[in-house]
């Protein structure tokens, strides 16, 4: 109690909260002395004697005061407070410099943290799924066909499920779309068929109700559904009594049993229904589900893959004769994160590296400025040491100052980060983000690391002069004024080193940015294989309940195309299974085939090509180029000979002499998303090649080379897909057509929803999205880095000119003219800049190779691009040298020499 009271009172006094000022003590003591003196006079002394005696009796006045002060408050804290006050006075004495230092640090910490937070939120989505690190997809690679089979059959799923030593849990899912009838118009929502354990294995609990029960996951089990938080809010206004209520999906009524928490975007769906897999199904070629699995803790990817490989070999042994695809396929795990963000990982890593460089460069900058500042204070420090300040006091003082700067900068940095992050997220279209915007938060770890680096730099370089003083005789410092010709050599070489490092790092970032820009330009000029202008696209998925038979499905699409075609301002229209440039993966629908008349020594040497089912008008609507033969036309009806149009890549791969027309191909096994080809047990059909068209960029990953591809006539399909994309070419702004198109379709089937309406231009722009985002962020970083490194060079040079005033004065006095002086300074700066650029180029050649995956049409070591970056940096650096050089020429020799 007693101690606490003393502690509180001393602490309050330390910070001057209880302000019994020094003057008060002075008054009290002088009164005391006065009284003593008066008493002495009364005893008969004269005034002088009386005062002297009073002082004697009182004892040391100053000692008393000091003892009193030490006891009031805590000596350490009081001293610290004194240092802080002194430090802030010094900071305000050179406000421009202090502000620059703080700003640089704040921008470094802030923007670095903001971008890193963004990267982190996109890259490690651990905030959405707890088991994301161990959550894998199991898929097969078919080396001869060069495709991945993501969709697998029921027996295959069960075989993987038996590897219990590797997997904690194995489930199956497939994505789907549902016509949700709630409210006026039916609406299509993404949904997923899941095995009962597929949701529980994510270890995310529903916020309402429950997940699926095993008995709900059996064929013929109850029809139940779970909703996403978002759908629950959007369609059911977050009704707390939703459980047990019905939801109509594709004209079938399901009972709602649970609601998942926000941001649970499992397989991109908003509604989940039990998969109800028939475990007795022995059909190995009916592959319609993805395998999702959670790997046991402690099991590495390598171990898991080894087990899967063993399983693959068993399958080959047992079924290899009847199932040729088993002969050399390999099952392997694919981490869910990799599956979702695999494509943008190189971009994120490049950005993360650029952020690291940004923080390092700003730290180096601050180091230069702090060193310059404190070296300039050597003399002051020496004076204080001469007056009796101990080295510990000096170091404490310098530390306090540096930490003060670091602290202010850190606070400002936090503000910058908090201000920049929402801005960045806002500027990025939500579909480019792989996560939810509200999940992007300032990353505390990143902030701590950035502040830590900045603080360390601040302390280290703030202390430098003190350590230097400890090494050398401070009397020397006093005599020399801290710096004269030849003085401060160590400091100068350290500064030069930092400047060179900064410029080198800037060059790396600039080079990366330039490469990205180059590659982006090439991409924009890429031949898409179709003309995206004046085109509208949308999707129709016919529900199985109302469209069961071939005639109904094909009939709907044929009538729809015809009635859209008849609308005013429509030039052409068509349908396709699988719209170009919408999906990321390549294997949405591919098919094995063999070429008739060509000897296949081994039955499994099957070829594989993607395929799309199209209506006759599709090629014309898309503006695809016909290279040979003819397009599919209305003649290619159900009764006519089966025909196929193939793409350039397929010709190049299988008919290098270009004699593909008229050749016949026999179709085999199908892989891919069920909605895109409908029938699994397609009979072995033989098609005649009637035309060759130019390659079309089919996936969003524009830089990916086109695969061999076949276009099949919709009218000739025995089991046509129910999900088709419409493309409409118009002579006016295509969005204006939407109402009349909806009207025309409503006449055919008023209950049928129209989804994913987009202009083709927009689809193309979106496909460029991630690239543009990377380029944008990288340019942002490169800009900051360029400015920072020029400031660093400028500061170092300006400081060195200041330090060399004396020397320059002597040179001028000895006859050097302005040009000599400015040449001297410029060449100093140019030396640093060029040295930095040289190192930077060398480092870039090594480092940019890591971003090769990100680049298209330009090699990572592209000399022209590197040269451009180097030229830009050198120019800016030289411009930064210009001001100090000019200032040097303006030095008045007389003033400079008198200055000492």
């Amino acid at each position, binding site marked *: 109690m*007693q101690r606490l*009271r*003393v502690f509180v*009172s*001393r602490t309050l006094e330390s910070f001057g909260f209880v302000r019994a000022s020094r003057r*008060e*003590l002075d*008054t*009290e*003591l002088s*009164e*005391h002395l*006065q*009284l*003593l003196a*008066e*008493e002495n006079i009364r005893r008969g002394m004269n005034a002088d004697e009386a005062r002297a005696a009073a002082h004697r*009796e*009182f*004892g*040391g*006045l100053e*000692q*008393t005061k000091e*003892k*009193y002060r030490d*006891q*009031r408050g805590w000596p350490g804290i009081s001293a610290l407070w004194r240092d802080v006050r002194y430090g802030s006075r010094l900071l305000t004495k050179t406000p421009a410099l202090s502000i620059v230092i703080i700003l640089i640090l704040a921008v470094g910490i802030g923007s670095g943290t903001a971008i890193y937070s963004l990267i982190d939120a996109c890259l490690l989505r651990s905030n959405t799924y707890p088991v994301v690190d161990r959550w894998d997809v199991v898929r097969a690679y078919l080396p001869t066909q060069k495709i991945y089979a993501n969709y697998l059959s029921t027996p295959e799923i069960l075989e993987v499920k038996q590897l219990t030593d590797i997997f904690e849990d194995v489930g199956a899912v497939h994505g789907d779309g549902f016509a949700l009838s709630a409210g006026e118009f039916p609406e299509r929502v993404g949904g997923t068929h899941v095995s009962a354990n597929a949701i529980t294995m994510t270890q995310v609990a529903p916020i309402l109700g429950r997940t699926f029960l095993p008995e709900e996951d059996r064929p013929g089990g109850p029809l139940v559904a779970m909703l996403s938080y978002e759908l629950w809010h959007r369609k059911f206004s977050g009704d707390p009594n939703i459980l047990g209520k019905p939801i109509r999906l594709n004209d079938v009524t399901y009972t709602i049993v649970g609601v998942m928490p926000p941001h649970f975007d499992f397989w991109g769906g908003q509604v989940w229904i039990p998969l109800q897999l028939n475990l007795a199904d022995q059909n190995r070629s009916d592959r319609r589900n993805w395998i999702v699995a959670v790997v046991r803790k402690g099991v590495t990817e390598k171990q898991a893959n080894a087990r899967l490989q063993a399983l693959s070999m068993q399958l080959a042994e047992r079924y290899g004769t009847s199932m040729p695809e088993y002969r050399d396929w390999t099952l392997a795990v694919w981490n869910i994160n990799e599956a979702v963000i695999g494509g943008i990982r190189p971009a994120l890593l490049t950005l993360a590296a650029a952020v690291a460089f940004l923080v390092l460069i700003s730290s180096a900058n601050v180091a230069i400025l702090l060193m310059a500042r404190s070296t300039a204070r050597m003399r002051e420090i020496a004076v204080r040491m001469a007056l009796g300040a101990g080295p510990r006091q000096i170091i404490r003082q310098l530390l306090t100052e540096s930490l003060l700067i670091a602290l202010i900068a850190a606070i400002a940095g936090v503000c910058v980060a908090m201000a920049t992050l929402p801005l960045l997220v806002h500027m990025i279209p939500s579909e480019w983000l792989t996560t939810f915007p509200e999940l992007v938060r300032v990353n505390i770890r990143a902030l701590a690391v950035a502040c830590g680096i900045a603080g360390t730099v601040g302390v280290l370089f703030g202390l430098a002069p003190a350590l230097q003083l400890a090494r050398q005789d401070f009397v020397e410092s006093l005599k020399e004024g801290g710096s004269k010709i030849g003085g401060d050599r160590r400091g100068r070489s350290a500064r030069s080193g930092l400047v060179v490092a900064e410029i080198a790092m800037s060059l790396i970032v600039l080079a990366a940015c330039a490469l990205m820009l180059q590659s982006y330009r090439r991409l924009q000029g890429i031949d898409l294989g179709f003309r995206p202008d004046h085109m509208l696209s949308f999707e129709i998925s016919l529900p199985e309940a109302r469209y069961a038979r071939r005639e109904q499905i094909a009939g709907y699409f044929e009538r729809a195309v015809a009635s859209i075609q008849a609308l005013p301002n429509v030039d052409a229209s068509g349908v396709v299974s699988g719209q170009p440039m919408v999906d990321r993966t390549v294997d949405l629908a591919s098919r094995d085939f063999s070429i008739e008349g060509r000897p296949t020594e081994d039955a499994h040497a099957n070829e594989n090509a993607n395929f799309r089912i199209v209506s006759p008008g599709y090629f014309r609507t898309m503006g695809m180029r016909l290279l040979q033969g003819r397009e599919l036309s209305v003649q290619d009806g159900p009764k006519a000979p089966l025909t196929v149009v193939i793409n350039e890549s397929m010709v190049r791969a299988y008919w290098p002499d270009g004699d593909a027309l008229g050749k016949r191909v026999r179709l085999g096994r199908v892989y891919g998303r069920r909605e895109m080809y409908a029938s699994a047990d397609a009979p072995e059909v033989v098609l005649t090649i009637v035309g060759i068209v130019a390659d079309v960029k089919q996936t969003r990953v524009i830089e990916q080379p086109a695969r061999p591809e076949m276009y099949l006539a919709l009218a000739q399909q025995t089991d046509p897909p129910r999900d088709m994309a419409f493309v409409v070419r118009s002579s006016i702004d295509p969005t204006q057509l939407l109402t009349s198109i909806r009207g025309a379709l409503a006449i055919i089937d008023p209950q049928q929803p129209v989804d994913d309406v987009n202009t083709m231009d927009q689809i193309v722009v979106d496909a460029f999205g991630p690239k543009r985002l990377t380029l944008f962020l990288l340019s942002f970083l490169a800009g900051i880095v360029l400015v920072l490194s020029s400031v660093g060079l400028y500061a170092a040079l300006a400081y060195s000119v200041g330090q060399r005033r004396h020397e320059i004065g002597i040179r001028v006095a000895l006859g050097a003219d302005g040009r000599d002086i400015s040449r001297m300074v410029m060449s100093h700066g140019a030396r640093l800049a060029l040295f930095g650029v040289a190192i930077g180029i060398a480092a870039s050649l090594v480092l940019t190779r890591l971003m090769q995956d990100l680049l298209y049409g330009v090699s990572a070591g592209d000399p022209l691009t590197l040269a451009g970056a180097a030229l830009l940096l050198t120019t800016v650096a030289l411009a930064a040298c210009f001001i100090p050089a000019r200032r040097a020429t303006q030095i008045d020799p007389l003033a400079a020499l008198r200055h000492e």
Partner: protein
Amino acid sequence: MTPPSGEVLQGTLDLIVLKTLDAMGPQHGYGIAVRIQQVSEDLLKLNQGTLYPALLRLEQRGWISSKWGVSENNRKAKFYTLTRLGRRQLATETESWERMAAVIQRLIRTQGA
């Protein structure tokens, strides 16, 4: 390190100041110093300056409080008053001092005999 005779022992100053304030009521620093000297009949050589850190210490512990007022000769002075806590402290310290003094006295006697 033995204190010259007549110097105030470490720790005893607090007791002396508390006792003085107890006997005289509110008093300023000078008054306390004079009183101590009078009572001790100048046997205690007090560096009057040392009184002030002691006063601050006592105040921080809450045993005395201070207030600015006007001295007898119409001058500004800081008056110190014993608090209730201080009075209690004085009692315990007096008691322990007496016990201590008795012990020491006994020790000296037995040693001397």
